[in-house]
């Protein structure tokens, strides 16, 4: 117990005293909310439902350096149905984001603006529970996403709250897709490839993602541990090989965020 307490104290040392060490802000979230799915390879119909998302968001930045590193893991699972509740699709995806942001401090350090880019690696599926030879669609893509972040620190009810908005927009990437009427049997059993790895741009794959969060300290004193609520909207979409696909997820987020620094001590 003492060891754990000691470790926690070490991790929770106020970052102002550790300017040489990178400050790590890690947030863990669970999200719940509506999902909308369209994949014309599987069905001409639009599907709606609900889903769950887990999001881990980490930012590392040294006090003296304006560049920070963002690292995110986002996993979601949704169950959606057509408009008459007869057909069902299951959608799941894991998205990994890594990138660098440059920051500016404004308004006496109350407002921080950041700009840079993220690389998004995505792996997922859409499974139609009714279809025969085209039961599922694999979703694999790699995207470069210009990203901007605005964080504003303000006082409310004697507490210091932090509102943060992150917006990532599409630029270019590559993705897997069967051709318009191509079966997975041809691709994977016969090895007949036909434009199955497709370069994309913000025109053919206009994906974008936004996250608005509010960090609320539990006490009136400045804290390295805050409760976080927020919204995550991930609009993943593409029109390649004559096929149209979109997966829109809207999530109400709840979680916590903690700020710490790792100290390397000689033994």
């Amino acid at each position, binding site marked *: 117990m003492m060891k754990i307490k000691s470790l926690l104290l070490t991790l929770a040392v106020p970052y102002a005293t550790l300017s040489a060490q990178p400050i790590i802000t890690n947030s863990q979230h669970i999200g719940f909310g509506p999902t909308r799915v*369209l994949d*014309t390879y*599987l*069905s*001409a*119909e*639009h599907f709606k439902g609900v889903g769950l998302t887990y999001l881990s968001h980490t930012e590392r930045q040294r006090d003296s350096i304006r560049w920070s590193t963002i690292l995110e893991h986002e996993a979601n699972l949704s169950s959606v149905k*057509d*408009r*008459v*509740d*007869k*057909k069902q699709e299951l959608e799941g995806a894991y998205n990994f984001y890594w990138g660098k942001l440059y920051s*500016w401090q404004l308004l006496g350090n109350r407002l921080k*603006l950041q*700009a840079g880019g993220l690389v998004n690696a995505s792996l997922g599926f859409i499974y*139609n529970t*009714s*279809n*025969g*030879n*085209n039961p599922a669609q694999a979703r694999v893509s790699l995207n470069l996403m*210009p990203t*901007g972040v605005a964080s504003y620190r303000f006082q409310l009810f004697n507490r210091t709250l932090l509102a943060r908005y992150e*917006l990532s*927009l*599409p*630029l270019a990437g590559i993705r897997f897709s069967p*051709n*318009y*009427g*191509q*079966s997975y*049997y*041809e691709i994977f*059993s*016969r090895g*007949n490839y*036909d434009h199955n790895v497709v370069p994309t741009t*913000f*025109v053919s794959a*206009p*994906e*974008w993602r936004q996250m608005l969060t509010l960090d609320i300290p539990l006490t009136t004193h400045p804290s390295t541990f805050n409760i976080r609520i927020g919204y995550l909207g991930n*609009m993943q*979409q*593409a*029109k390649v*090989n*004559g096929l*149209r*696909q*979109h997966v829109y997820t809207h999530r109400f987020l709840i979680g916590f965020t903690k700020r710490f620094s790792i100290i390397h001590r000689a033994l």
Partner: protein
Amino acid sequence: MKKYIVYLVSLVLLASCVDTEERPNTPTGNFEALWQIIDEHYCFFDYKQKTYGLDWNAVYNKYKVRVSDRMTEDQLFEVLTDMLSELRDGHVNLSYSMDFGRYWAWQEDYPKNFSDSLERRYLGTDYKIAAGIYYRILDDNIGYIRYESFQMPIGEGNLDDVLSYLALCRGLIIDIRNNGGGNLANAEMLAGRFVHEKTLVGYMQHKTGTGHNDFSSLEARYMEPSSSIRWHKPVCVLTNRSVYSAANDFAVIMRALPRVTLIGDHTGGGSGLPMSNSLPNGWAVRYSACPMYDANKQHTEFGIAPDIAVGIGSSDNDEIIETARKYLVR
């Protein structure tokens, strides 16, 4: 900084939604949705236009006047099924909880050339079962394999055991009559036991766009010899009009192999790999999406003729099996 913000805003404006127009869930909306799904995805328009004059635009005009928003669900189902029957394709179906719309004239308009009672006479009661295969050795030392559906799985181990058991037979009969298809992998796995060198057995292509003639180039289909036990003696494959889809494909592959003879009736066909879609009212629609050809680049959508055409006859014997036995012991 300003430039960056302008760039971000520009991207937001350019990043439009990827969406499609939804048809209303009315009889007219469902009719339009079904006609369009077939129009954009069906793969045999050109071939069937040449074969029997199919004109999908004319089909639209013919059936559009039969649809009204006041009609009942049953009436709509009947009209839409009639419209799909114009495609003369067993892989084209419309289904919902109450019914399964189909075109089965390719088998219903012809003699069955198969009898359950006669099958029982040949198989007896002491036949062996290996996954989806029933098999035994007939009195004249001919091996008999009955594979009723390629939906029933088999494994390489099953085939090793079956062929080992039948190894001393002088010939082999593979009876796929009434086999309406199933998993292509099962058909290919079985056929691989009769391939002794890399063999061209057909071609395949797929649609690359919504146009009736938007197709990829033909991709050759080769069969590689199985690395397990292979059959080197003569083989007869028994067929009838109910041999369809993956079973038709099996017959097409086997016909391209030496020492294989097709005996019985013309096969039913069904050479388009089917895919599925759905309508605004939730009804499921299936259609042929990827055409498959034989080794001569000919369509086999309407089946293939046997090497020896013979019917089941009216005696107490199954004349198709008897013809195969005589052929193998000659």
